[in-house]
């Protein structure tokens, strides 16, 4: 167990950034989101949740795929360069780390998404325990431990305790990073303190209003029953069909592929799409889901039924609670689960 005084974190950031790109929660115009470190950035690791999940470090909101350039009457195609440098994501919470696992199921399954895979190969995840979980959190429901990222795909687990940050490498990548930073990290971290912190966090988690949510019946066996339920007809009504829930979500992975005419050629890029949008998966004949009820149902059926059915029971919700906080109409997955009787 390593540790570093929080007051030394700027040094740590600088040291990491000396050899790699570093992404961490930054305050910008009053909001905290993950972004690349720079000399004049303002890191904020105290705020529990970034507005957007850090999934865009691995799966950017928009990324270029390739560029077509016209040369006379011929077309030259330049594929976008894949990520080939290591980078560190510092301060991801357990739920967000689990979110990456969900994305892995999608993008690393055959056919492998090379753009995503390159980022995963080069990304080093430094997870951080949730010092003070909030009322919108319900990661426990999905078996995620906000107090300890050790059992996840993170490379390093950290805890903020008092004036120190405790640091525990989990993987080879994590060990390598730790040794690069050995000058700044002291190896005398007190395991007991970490244990105390974990217990404190777990105690809070057990008190959270959504921690008792039940997912019973959200599985492939109940697909028809859930799909045809009349609940949806009422549930979707306040939905504004905006993309807030999908864009702040750590697991939403849908994207659209578009072309941009730069005047000198065409850039083919992809960007996040939202199943809440009326033109989502629009095809020549029209739309396969032509009412907002259907689109609304799709999002939750996907997270709670289709995805676990296809992925050994793994839900594509990690209980981060961002949609709970951000939905303009105060709708969210919790209300859906409760409406189907999940709050006993």
């Amino acid at each position, binding site marked *: 167990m390593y540790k570093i005084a929080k007051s030394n974190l700027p040094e740590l950031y600088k040291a990491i950034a000396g050899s790699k790109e570093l992404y961490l929660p930054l305050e910008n115009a009053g909001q905290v989101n993950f972004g690349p470190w720079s000399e004049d950035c303002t890191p904020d690791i105290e705020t529990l949740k970034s507005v957007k999940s850090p999934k865009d470090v691995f799966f950017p909101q928009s990324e270029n795929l390739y560029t077509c350039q016209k040369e006379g009457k011929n077309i030259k195609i330049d594929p976008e360069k894949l990520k080939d440098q290591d980078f560190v994501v510092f301060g991801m919470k357990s739920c967000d780390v689990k979110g990456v696992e969900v994305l892995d199921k999608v993008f690393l399954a055959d056919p492998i998404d090379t753009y995503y895979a390159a980022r995963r190969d080069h990304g080093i995840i430094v997870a951080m325990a949730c010092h003070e979980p909030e009322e919108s959190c319900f990661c426990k429901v999905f078996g995620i431990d906000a107090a300890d990222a050790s059992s996840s795909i993170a490379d390093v687990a950290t805890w903020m305790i008092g004036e120190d940050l405790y640091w525990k490498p989990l993987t080879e990548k994590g060990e390598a990073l730790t040794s690069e930073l050995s000058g700044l990290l002291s190896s005398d971290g007190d395991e007991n303190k970490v244990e105390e912190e974990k217990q404190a966090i777990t105690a809070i988690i057990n008190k959270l209003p959504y921690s008792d949510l039940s997912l019973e019946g959200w599985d492939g066996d109940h697909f028809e029953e859930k799909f045809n339920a009349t609940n949806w007809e009422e549930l979707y009504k306040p939905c504004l069909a905006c993309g807030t829930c999908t864009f702040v979500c750590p697991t939403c992975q849908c994207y659209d592929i578009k072309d*941009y005419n*730069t*005047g*000198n050629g065409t*850039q083919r890029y992809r960007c996040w799409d939202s199943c809440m949008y009326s033109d989502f998966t629009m095809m020549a004949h029209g739309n396969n889901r032509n009412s907002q009820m259907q689109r609304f149902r799709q999002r939750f059926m996907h997270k709670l039924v289709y995805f676990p059915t296809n992925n050994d029971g793994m839900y594509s919700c990690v209980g981060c609670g961002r949609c709970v906080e951000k939905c303009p109409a105060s709708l969210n997955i919790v209300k859906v689960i409760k409406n189907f009787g999940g709050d006993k």
Partner: protein
Amino acid sequence: MSIENETFRPKIVAFCCNWCSYAGADLAGSSRLVYPADVKIIRVPCSCRVNPMFILRAFEKGADGVIMCGCHPGDCHYSTGNYYARRRMTLLFSMLDFIGVENGRTRVEWVSAAEGVKFSTTMNEFVEKITSLGPNVRLEDLRCRN
């Protein structure tokens, strides 16, 4: 972008209404009244056809200045088109100013079919102004740079 030390030549889009300003530009041409080749004219039926979207699009794609010319107020071929255009452009320009786009990258000038001289003078002035402001970096889409 082109080589650094090359002098900056702005890209300028001019929207001209068919009945007055486009004809004014024709008159400037037939009177051989010189103005810089940086100005490219797009013909529209009336200044009221100019959508703010067209103007922002021009900036997005790398224009350094956009000017709209129409019939003098009161002389619109369609009676009232330029009155609407005047309000639209006033508000749009004010908004661009509000978000910090340099003043002077946009302009409206009323040019009649008889005002070839005014057309030419206006374009000379405008090109000079845009040249002094330098390249538009605040509104362009970086993808269009390469």
